């Protein structure tokens, strides 16, 4: 079946564009980059059609990577139903975003470099998804982190971009540390990192061990998927180009954590405490991020916090045992969030770089295609009945209610807030009077609009086209969740209420937001400044570490101790030499005295050695 072709094609694109792209024309770069991803997508389709129903996993073993005693890790790739969904999402939405980038990046410098990095990212993401053992997954995991860093800092001449790249990489690293510890524990317990082996042995292990593994994996997932407390990198990652935000930080990379936890469902179903932790962290993150999103004025930041919040929903799904619901939401979120980001990119492109929503307004007539495609996405994310987002969010909320009703209620409130802030953004951007200063807001070229339209169709109808819960039902353990129409109605009602409130506050009576903001100024400032979490982290963690490093490790150990030893050796040698120099006085009598002195010592030594003294 040649599964390896799926990741290798983008890698080839990266290599060619990376090495020769500087000399290629734009058309050649496009052909290589887009071609490789589209070919990969085509190969995915061919493979999936050939594999058919996929009742069991299909594995391909390529070579043994590590062989050490009884422990061996092979370069294996596997496809089962979960992998199939991920493959389609990654390659499909990846292709659309690559096509969109042709238009968006047309006027930016470093054109070939952008596509090279994007292809590299596709390679690593596909490796992550196709991996049949934890180590190969980790390779992809780290690789997407690297590409995220490279792409966030794409405008490397801007300090805030490079800072954001650093922040993303470093915070991810903390998560990776937890992941590594989990892998060590898995190896020591089960002797292998292979999914098949681990999951067959897992039920027999002790619950404490499985809980520890589960929590450590959760640390890794929290880093990659931006959950509390490691979410702080995602809003700053908006410094990268918008297609990057769409692809990496909405549709694919950040979902790697959800994928990994869903893949490890065997471990989690036998470690209930870990699962509850996932659910609690998920809902807390969802609620927390939604509150921050209410007050942001940068259009990309609103969607960034929205991503964090929606990822929280996915984790709630996984944590409540509804793995297929979590993956379902992963897919639908990929559709509408990618569309929201691409749409905002289209708006920014139309306004020649303006991102502050307070400088927008009334763009409905000027960029209609963007406006109405984003409307479809907003409906989906708000959970408007019968959109894809509605179906997936409902699946999660019902499962949550089945596990712990309070999660359902918090989730419903969050859904209301989600609808509110998304439509706040929509109304502020497209309705009212134009408040900005750009010369001539113009619609985007077709190469950017076609992906928007495709994604809009998928946002509205994708939930029906791809019935994930039934598809994945055979893979995950069955969950008896009754269909409760009352709960579904309440959740939908919350969404509709949010839309209505946004309409009132931003279209009908535009003065209300300022009144509320000045009235509740304390809370407003808190929320607007993202609860000062970054500042707290900076003071509590970053500054002590940096200060400690500077004082203790740099001045104390490196300059003081190590340099001190090295320089000290040199200085002592010089001192000794200087002292010994005094012996060379040129005075024969002092020489004689030293000889006599040495003679005395030798006599003493000989006497002691011969045993005369005792």
């Amino acid at each position, binding site marked *: 079946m040649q599964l390896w072709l799926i990741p290798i094609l983008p890698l080839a694109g990266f290599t060619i564009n990376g090495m020769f792209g500087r000399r290629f024309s734009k058309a050649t770069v496009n052909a290589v980059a887009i071609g490789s991803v589209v070919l990969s997508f085509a190969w995915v389709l061919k493979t999936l059609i050939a594999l058919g129903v996929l009742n069991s996993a299909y594995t391909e073993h390529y070579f043994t990577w590590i062989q050490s005693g009884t422990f061996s890790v092979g370069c294996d790739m596997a496809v089962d139903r979960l992998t199939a969904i991920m493959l389609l999402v990654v390659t499909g939405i990846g292709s659309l975003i690559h096509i969109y980038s042709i238009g968006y990046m047309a006027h930016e410098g470093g054109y070939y470099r952008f596509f090279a990095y994007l292809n590299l990212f596709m390679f690593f993401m596909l490796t992550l998804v196709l991996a049949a053992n934890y180590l190969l997954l980790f390779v992809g995991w780290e690789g997407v982190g690297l590409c995220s860093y490279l792409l966030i800092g794409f405008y490397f001449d801007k300090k805030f971009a490079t800072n954001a790249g650093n922040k993303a990489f470093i915070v991810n690293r903390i998560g990776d540390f937890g992941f590594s510890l989990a892998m060590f524990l898995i190896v020591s317990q089960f002797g292998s990192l292979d999914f098949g082996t681990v999951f067959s042995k897992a039920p027999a292990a002790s619950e404490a061990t499985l809980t520890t593994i589960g929590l450590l994996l959760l640390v890794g997932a929290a880093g990659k998927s931006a959950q509390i407390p490691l979410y702080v990198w995602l809003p700053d990652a908006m410094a990268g180009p918008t297609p990057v935000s769409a692809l990496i930080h909405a549709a694919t990379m950040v979902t790697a954590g959800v994928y990994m936890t869903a893949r490890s469902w065997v471990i989690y179903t036998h470690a209930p405490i870990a699962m509850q932790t996932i659910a609690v962290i998920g809902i807390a993150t969802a609620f927390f991020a939604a509150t921050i999103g209410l007050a942001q004025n940068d259009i990309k930041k609103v969607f960034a916090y929205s991503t964090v919040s929606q990822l929280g929903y996915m984790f709630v799904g996984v944590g409540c045992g509804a793995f297929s619901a979590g993956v379902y939401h992963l897919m639908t979120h990929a559709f509408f969030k990618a569309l929201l980001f691409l749409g905002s990119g289209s708006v920014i492109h139309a306004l020649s770089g303006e991102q502050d929503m307070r400088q927008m307004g009334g763009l409905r007539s000027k960029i209609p295609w963007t406006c109405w495609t984003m409307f479809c996405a907003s409906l989906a994310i708000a959970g408007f009945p019968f959109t894809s987002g509605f179906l997936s969010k409902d699946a999660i909320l019902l499962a949550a209610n089945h596990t712990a009703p309070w999660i359902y209620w918090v989730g419903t409130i969050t859904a209301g807030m989600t609808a509110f802030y998304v439509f706040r953004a929509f109304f502020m951007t497209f309705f009212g009077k134009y408040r900005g200063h750009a010369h001539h807001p113009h619609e985007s070229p077709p190469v950017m609009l076609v992906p928007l339209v495709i994604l809009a169709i998928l946002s509205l109808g994708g939930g029906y086209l791809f019935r994930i819960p039934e598809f994945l039902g055979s893979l995950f353990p069955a969950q008896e969740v009754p269909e409760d129409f009352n709960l579904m109605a309440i959740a939908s009602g919350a969404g509709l209420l949010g839309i209505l409130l946004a309409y009132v506050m931003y279209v009908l009576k535009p003065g209300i937001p300022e009144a509320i903001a000045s009235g509740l100024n304390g809370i407003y400032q808190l929320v607007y400044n993202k609860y000062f979490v970054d500042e707290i982290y900076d003071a509590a963690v970053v500054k002590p570490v940096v200060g400690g490093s500077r004082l203790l490790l740099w001045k104390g150990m490196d300059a003081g101790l190590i340099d001190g030893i090295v320089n000290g050796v040199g200085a002592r040698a010089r001192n000794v030499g200087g002292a010994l120099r005094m012996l*060379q*006085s040129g*005075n024969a009598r002092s020489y*004689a005295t030293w000889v006599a002195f040495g003679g005395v010592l030798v006599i003493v030594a000989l006497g002691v050695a011969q045993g005369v003294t005792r």
Partner: protein
Amino acid sequence: MSQVPISWFLTLSAILFVLGVAGFIFRRSIITMFMSIELMLNAVNLSFITFSYQLKQVDGHLFVFFVMVVAAAEAAVGLAIILTVFKNRQTLNIDEVNSMKN
């Protein structure tokens, strides 16, 4: 018929040797230092002869023979050197012959 203990000879040799070293260390004239060297050599000769007596062998005498020959040769050459030094620096003070300083 009283006998002299051997250790007395060796002690005398030690005293003469130390006196030679003292002369070498504390005197400034080169010629006097040379004579202190000769004194040391004589002290060592005494102890060679003493050991030869103790071991009832003649080899100690042979050593003394060679020591005397070498001392004579050394005296000849050394005095020639002293003459040259005196010709060049007009001084017999060892502390002024210090161009090897530092």
